[in-house]
């Protein structure tokens, strides 16, 4: 494995499978009454969040703490971080404090790449701008594996604002590495112009894709996109690309519904679909902790896991 996890493209098929298998092992710990491992005792993990994301921060914090790492939460929001020099200065501060891993969430695409040039510890991308969110893709793949088994040849449909979605980018890269067949569905305005060079299919027609999908993953659609004329109205978006009960009925019986959260109920996903047994949305949250434990564990080169679990 590389030293950093910045893009899902950093992971070979073997790397990805190792993370998912390790997460499977770690999941067993979550079922025990004492959920903590001594593996990363004495190591420091910094959560560096330049954007509000309580759920992702808590997920990483829980993951690091269950591995006994010292966790420092650095919420940069509200401090003077709009200037880039602050990112470098912050990086140098963390470096001086001896951070072994820095988990960064930042509104600017590529911020983790820049951070990695200034710190010695491992950098884990917890979402950068409209670029990537690789641990989200890993937890999604983990969730799919638990429901469906191997992802080889599985048909996975990702629906929504692909243009601005870091979840979509990371998922396309990781899922294609794992042998799945990904189809992206969106109105043409919400695809990047060169999406045809990505390792996936694209479609403008959700209804045509649904019957052939093992997984349907709905992406959050930001309401402000409407003002930039990406689509005419929320109602029209919902009608053409929202997942409601009628559309779920067109999916194969075993197919599952996913959403990375937070959801706009009634916009891209109907409440009854989100809460249905096909939905894995709550599982995804739980799986996030385990998957992130596996990532931190492997990046920070913890001791042999087998011995610790038994």
């Amino acid at each position: 494995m590389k030293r950093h996890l910045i893009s899902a493209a950093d992971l070979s098929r073997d790397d990805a499978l190792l993370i998912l298998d390790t997460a499977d092992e770690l999941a067993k710990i979550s079922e025990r009454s004492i959920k903590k491992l001594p593996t990363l005792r004495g190591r420091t993990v910094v959560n560096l969040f330049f954007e509000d994301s309580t759920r992702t921060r808590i997920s990483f914090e829980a993951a690091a703490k269950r591995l006994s790492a010292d966790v420092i939460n650095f919420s940069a929001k509200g401090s003077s971080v709009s200037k880039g020099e602050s990112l470098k200065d912050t990086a140098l501060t963390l470096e001086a404090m001896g951070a072994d891993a820095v988990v960064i969430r930042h509104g600017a695409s590529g911020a983790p790449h820049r951070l990695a040039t200034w710190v010695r510890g491992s950098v884990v991308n917890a979402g950068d701008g409209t670029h990537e969110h690789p641990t989200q893709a890993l937890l999604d793949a983990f969730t799919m594996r638990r429901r469906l088994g191997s992802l080889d040849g599985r048909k996975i449909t990702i629906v929504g604002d692909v243009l601005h979605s870091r979840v979509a980018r990371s998922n396309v890269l990781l899922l294609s590495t794992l042998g799945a067949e990904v189809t992206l569905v969106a109105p043409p305005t919400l695809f990047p112009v060169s999406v045809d060079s990505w390792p996936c299919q694209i479609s403008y027609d959700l209804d045509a894709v649904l019957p052939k999908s093992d997984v349907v993953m709905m992406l959050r659609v930001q309401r402000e996109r409407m003002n930039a004329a990406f689509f005419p109205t929320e109602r029209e978006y919902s009608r053409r690309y929202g997942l409601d009960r009628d559309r779920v009925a067109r999916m194969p019986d075993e197919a599952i519904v996913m959403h990375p959260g937070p959801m706009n109920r009634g916009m891209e996903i109907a409440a009854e679909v989100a809460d249905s047994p096909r939905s894995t949305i709550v599982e995804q949250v739980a799986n996030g902790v385990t998957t992130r434990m596996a990532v931190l564990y492997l990046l920070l080169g913890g001791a042999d896991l087998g011995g610790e679990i038994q």
Partner: protein
Amino acid sequence: MSSIVIKGASILGGEPRDILIRDGVVADIGQGLTGDETVEARGLIALPGLVDLHTHLREPGREDAETVATGTRAAALGGYTAVHAMANTEPVADTAGVVEQVWRLGQEAGYCDVQPVGAVTVGLGGERLAELGAMADSAAQVRVFSDDGKCVSDAVLMRRALEYVKAFDGVVAQHAQEPRLTSGAQMNEGAVSGRLGLTGWPAVAEEAVIARDCLLAAHVGSRLHVCHVSTAGSVEILRWAKSKGWDVTAEVTPHHLLLTDELVEDSPVGAYNPIYKVNPPLRTRADVEALREALADGTIDCVATDHAPHPVEDKETEWAAAAMGMIGLETALSVVQEAMVETGLLDWAGVAERMSLAPARIGRLRGHGRSIEVGAPANITLYDASVRGEVDPSGYASKSRNTPYEGRTLPGRVVATFLRGRPTVLNGKLA
């Protein structure tokens, strides 16, 4: 006044000749000439002093990035004898007072002539015409007007500017960038921007404005200059406009002749390194090829550096927060040698035309851009095209270090520069 003889220089790559300089002009060209001082130039190419139509000297306002003094030293070291100082200073060069100040600073610095560019609109605001006539009539005698950094996007205002400057033989140099299509844009819109999740800067945002402006210039019978052309589509539009006989000229930067947007994703200095962030953005390999061809066949008239100094802290940031621009004065000739001469697209006469004669003509600079011949002002650059070296900005005269070529091997070296007979650079160092 004493005389200087340049011994054995190869004028435009031709047979070795001696060039005698007296009283600031070329007094004789031949064999076995003698003078009070001798500059050995065997094996060196003599070019007319280079002229830059597009330089950001940053003074007044951003003296932390560059000053007229440091920028003109960088220009001299790059073989330039005249530069056009862009108007986007603080305060903006939109009055006779500011352009005269910049012009005087250039005179005092003495390393190369500084010809100020005047803003088209007040404060680069794109709303009202600046006092173009006052700037033209000032001591600075402004002939080139540009809101560079911003586009004169209002079609009526652009039309009026094109018409108005006819009264004093001016030219509007347009920074072609449709603002609505480039809101928040970070890099060329294409495969790389899609993968990197950076807001795209579509080629059409440049091409649409160029097409409109060519039509406007033709309609009002004025002349138009297009700054830093960066796309293959822009080249096609310019070729079409020129085929109509319209008075349209264009420039290309050295970096757009060499670098592509792939460097944003994959380079020796890491992904998302803002050293490659520039306006207009680096484009694709196909665009680079089209620009080279266009410069070779004259569709693009000249090379202009768009030398854009920025302090370190404005580049050592995440991509979106970084300033746009690259320095270029001290590497321009080397990049042109690599992109145009070593590829066989231009000979040295062609380089002289594109980097000296044409820009001086467009800027209406008398005394610059003249072929090296008896009676011409002795603005001469001596260049050693036979060497190659690694780019190391630590010794640059520019105050800034934001070169995209650091660590890259480039050909050629400016050995000497003469401004009206006076050496500003000798042995590759400021004289």
